[in-house]
């Protein structure tokens, strides 16, 4: 079943066309990894999927809801799409627990004890139960990103979007975060991941998308894209980073 779909997606900043008509279908439980050179439009594409960026043309369809339809309640849809950022974007004035429970408390009216229980179980799933009452600034990068993932899960979404979740981390922290993501994939979470971690892509991804210059150049299972790239540009890119 198709969980998330983009049709002929166009995005321009001023006169500059960043996304040039992108089509993609992500199935329920599927993990899609987007790779490509810097500036090719990966982040913008991801941000269009929950409409953090307005799209100029084309459609974004999630569970049969067209997000580009102005009558669509975008906030309701976003509850169902968690997002994890390169810079974590934890709220510095709130504790880890408060970060996680902000949205459930505001949007779902859950009780204090329910909230605490939910928060603790999410923190356990990312291995952070001992940091519930810490402020983000006192945590390491890896801990912050795992807390951010717990926060993204707080509204119990069906889809998670990751924009280079490990790029800002010290190398020794990368493994923990990728481990958490791998667990999520195993549990059947639908995920779109922009990353340069080719190991992760190879092991976890169901399909790999290679983007260049605002276009999807190549798409296929990791074994095919990595071992037998059809396109010259894909080959060049892989040669450079592997």
């Amino acid at each position, binding site marked *: 079943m198709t969980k998330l779909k983009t049709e002929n997606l166009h995005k321009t900043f001023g006169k500059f066309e960043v996304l040039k008509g992108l089509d993609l279908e992500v199935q329920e439980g599927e993990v899609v990894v987007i790779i490509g050179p810097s500036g090719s439009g990966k982040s913008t594409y991801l941000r269009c999927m929950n409409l953090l960026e307005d799209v100029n043309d084309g459609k974004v369809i999630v569970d049969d809801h067209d997000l580009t339809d102005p009558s669509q309640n975008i906030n309701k849809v976003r509850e*169902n799409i968690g*997002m994890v950022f390169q810079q974590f*974007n934890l709220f510095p004035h709130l504790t880890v627990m408060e970060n996680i429970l902000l949205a459930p408390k505001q949007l779902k009216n859950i009780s204090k004890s329910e909230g605490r229980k939910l928060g603790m179980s999410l923190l356990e799933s990312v291995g952070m139960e001992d940091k519930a009452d810490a402020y983000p600034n006192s945590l390491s990068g890896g801990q912050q990103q795992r807390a951010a993932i717990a926060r993204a899960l707080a509204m119990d979404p069906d889809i998670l979007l990751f924009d280079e979740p490990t790029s800002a981390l010290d190398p020794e922290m990368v493994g923990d975060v990728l481990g958490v993501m791998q667990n999520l994939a195993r549990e059947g979470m639908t995920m779109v991941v922009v990353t340069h971690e080719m190991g992760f892509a190879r092991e976890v991804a169901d399909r790999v998308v290679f983007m260049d210059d605002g276009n999807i150049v190549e798409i296929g299972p990791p074994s095919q894209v990595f071992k037998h790239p059809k396109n010259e540009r894909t080959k060049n890119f892989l040669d450079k980073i592997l």
Partner: protein
Amino acid sequence: MKVKKKSHILIGLIFLLTLASSLLFLKKTVEAAEQSDPYIIATDVTFAPFEYQNEDGEYIGIDIELLAAIAEDQGFEYELRPMNFSAGLQALEGNQVDGMIAAMSITPEREESFDFSEPYIDAGPVLAVHEDNDEITSYEDLDGKTLAVKIGTTGAQFADDLAEDYDITINQFEDSANMYEDVAAGQADAAVEDYPVMAYAIQQGLPLKLPTESEEGYPVGFAVNEDQNQELLEMFNAGLENIQEDGTYDEIMDTYLVSSDDTDEAGTKETAAQMDPYIIATDVTFAPFEYQNDDNEYIGIDIDLLAAIAEDQGFAYELRPMNFSAGLQALETNQVDGMIAAMSITPEREESFDFSEPYIDAGPVLAVHEDNDEISSYEDLDGKTLAVKVGTTGAQFADELAQEYDITINQFEDSANMYEDVAAGQADAAVEDYPVMAYAIQQGLPLKLPTEPEEGYPIGFAVNEGQNQELLEMFNAGLVNVMEDGTYDEIMDTYLVSPEDAEVAEGTGILSLLASNFDALMAGLGRTLLLTLISFGISLVAGTIFGLFSATKNRALNLVANIYVTVLRGIPLIVLAFFMYFSVPQLFDIQLTAFMAGIITLSLNTTAYISEQVRGGIAAVPIGQLEAARSLGLPYRQSMQKVVLPQAIKIMIPSLINQLVITLKDTSILSVIGIVELTQSGRIIIARSYQSGAMWIIVGLIYLIIITLLTKLSNLIERSLMND
């Protein structure tokens, strides 16, 4: 040698010839002026509504038209010669002009040099109310009302007198325009001002009217030099009578002045029964003549003098302090037997009352800094600067001095500033009525009197005409005795610094000044803090709203915020205050107290600045914060409220503290609309104590202490917030 001597003689001869011929020529022209047919009449250059130029440059005004009508009636020719007032007086005295008509008050000194016509107008103070006000038709109706006055005028004094009788709030202003506007805008219920000036202002379109007749004041007349041009004076008087009869006079007055509503005089005459102790009226407060000391006992020159004379003459009396004009009425209706209240012996008063020998003179006197040993006579003023109070006899005297010597004149609206100009060394000397000046010095002003006072209005004790003559005789006899036995000098020494021994009585220090005015200063500080906190609270809320407006993606809201900030930051606070207090009530027909107007002014202004700080604070929160919140499904408002604003406020705290300090300091500007906050409290204390040097240090220190404390407190709050 010989040649040289000859040439000397030649030059001397030529010089003598030139001198003689020019003197002859001068004599001829003077004679010609005297004999020539049209009378030369001096007038002032500009003094509306009496004489001023219209748009075509022609002279018009009450004096001009009155003279024209009288000349036509009497069939004499004249030529108008506008010159400045004191030059006119000199020209009249030197027979260079034949007469003078220039809103000239008929004062006793002038009567010594000139012959005056019958008075053609009176310049006493009059009440003015808004044209729509039908509530106030007598002084009694002022009970519970607010009166606007100009500081230091006879009108202000009259208002004070009224305030003794009725429950009246007084709004004080530095200039007439603001005073008028206070009434026009409905902030005050009435204003008090000299009748011709007020009536002319109304004629000029001010939406006020005069509900009562004007009070008695200085009569204004036409003058010729003493014993000169008597036929002109007679013609003027005859003509004046004719034009008053044929309605021309009323026409002229109607052209320039708005008349009072007709009011009936309530004339209830009661004859006070003769009692053993004489009942003596005195003024309630007029330092140094009569005022209450810290124990609420009456002291002062009048009080002490009366006591000394009564003791000397062995008569019993009872003092009855009442306001000055009430005292005059009481004396006229025999409700009191005598009156001692710094009463000038004026010709009009002499018609109603019998006066004692004068016991002091209120002529102007020169004052210099106590360290100034350079100026000991008027001649020493050459090349110097004189401080005067606008519109006083002192100012007139200074003008006369300036005709003789090269003197620069600094003009001030109030006495305190004038004194301080000298104390601070800005001016070399000041001119002021002798008793007032001498008392101010006694109170600690670092000035001294290098010369004797000029002759001015003598001051005397009064009984009703033909009544209590034995009391008057006793007063005169007693006055001679106390003058002889030294009691009189003792009394004067107590209250006045004499020109001879110009020594400051007592250096009043900052601490004692602070102690004696502590309550007034704290009340002012309280109002300053109240204004600050209320305005800042309002501005925090409103500024946040406008700041959010400019932070959204909504263009219309951006524009609203942008226009608000541009307009409010572009208007000086003082202008905004005047606008709120004077314009808004007129434009929107609402009532605003000064305090309300002050709060609104300060809030509007502070909101603009806080709005900019909020906008900056929001911009300083990384965009990822808003995106993270939105990606969780939180709507824009909740994202701002829960995520962005709490962080923006932390960023803004230092600039908000700064703004709080600015707002607190800006409250001092609100003194212009009459709010008695800390600065205005200082000003009022200075007007009473003449100690501006020490007072501004005190006021400045209070601000400094409060602001330092406030900053410390804010920093504590900031730190505790940051630690969260």
